[in-house]
């Protein structure tokens, strides 16, 4: 099964008070050196069929009209390979 990931982030010029609240909490918890935090949303879409250009075009349309509000948010669309071992960064 194919997975497509859509990441949605507030545009850089839009204030992110939630990210700021997280950032301000970090020093209290002993995590120093983080100068900025921006909080966003990640959508993992499982596709029935192949991830071809047509499917990606539909997903971009979906992201633009629904998953993101492009007045205040930017989005990126990427395909995630489903084979084992490709979830980079998941190792603990």
């Amino acid at each position, binding site marked *: 099964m194919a997975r497509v990931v859509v990441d949605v982030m507030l545009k850089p010029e839009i204030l992110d008070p*939630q990210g700021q609240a997280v950032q301000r909490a970090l020093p209290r918890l002993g995590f120093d050196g983080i100068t900025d935090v921006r909080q966003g949303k990640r959508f993992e879409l499982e596709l029935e069929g192949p991830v071809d250009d047509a499917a990606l075009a539909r997903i971009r349309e979906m992201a633009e009209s629904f998953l993101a509000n492009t007045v205040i948010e930017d989005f990126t669309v990427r395909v995630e390979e489903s084979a084992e071992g490709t979830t980079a960064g998941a190792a603990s």
Partner: protein
Amino acid sequence: MTTRIGVVTFPGSLDDHDARRAVRLAGGEPVALWHRDRDLKQVDAVVLPGGFSYGDYLRCGAIARFSPVMESVVEQARGGMPVLGICNGFQVLCESHLLPGALTRNDHLHFICRDQRLKVENAGTAWTSDYTEGQEITVPLKNGEGGFVADERTLDELESEGRVVFRYLGSNPNGSRRDIAGITNAAGNVVGLMPHPEHAVEPLTGPTTDGLGFFTSVLKKLVQA
């Protein structure tokens, strides 16, 4: 014949009853509309009430925008039918692109609930003709995501075209750009604002009766039409 004003109920709407009561107190006939129903029951105007439609999932108003009733509301609004969006209704209007901009989380992150002074800046819309330009009114304000944002060009356009209908007086409650509390579309039939006029329509329950003017304005306009 009495003027029929529809009030939409979405799953999660809270202020639909108060909006219907406000319509009745102003002398109109309130008509309950259901989110899954495309039929607007031949109403002359529509109010999108406050609340948390669809749990505010994804973004406030984002899912409500795609409800069957909104297809009809958007179509009729483009044809000139008066539409008022209050709080969550304002968010739905922005998500539907009937109004520009978006509402974001309050800059201080707190849910705010207080009586709010507003300045009426446009008394020429379908919903504000019973006010005078520059008039001060006080109605309740209660939201967690009421910060109005738009790019600078859109804000300049709204100001130069007189489409800022209400501005906050006193301290800005939510970080809204240029203290904007409510706006209208170019035609003046669609108005959205974060504060709640429907909670200020009788002395027993409201801080004032300043909100009644929204509903008497639209009734007058519809009778004249």
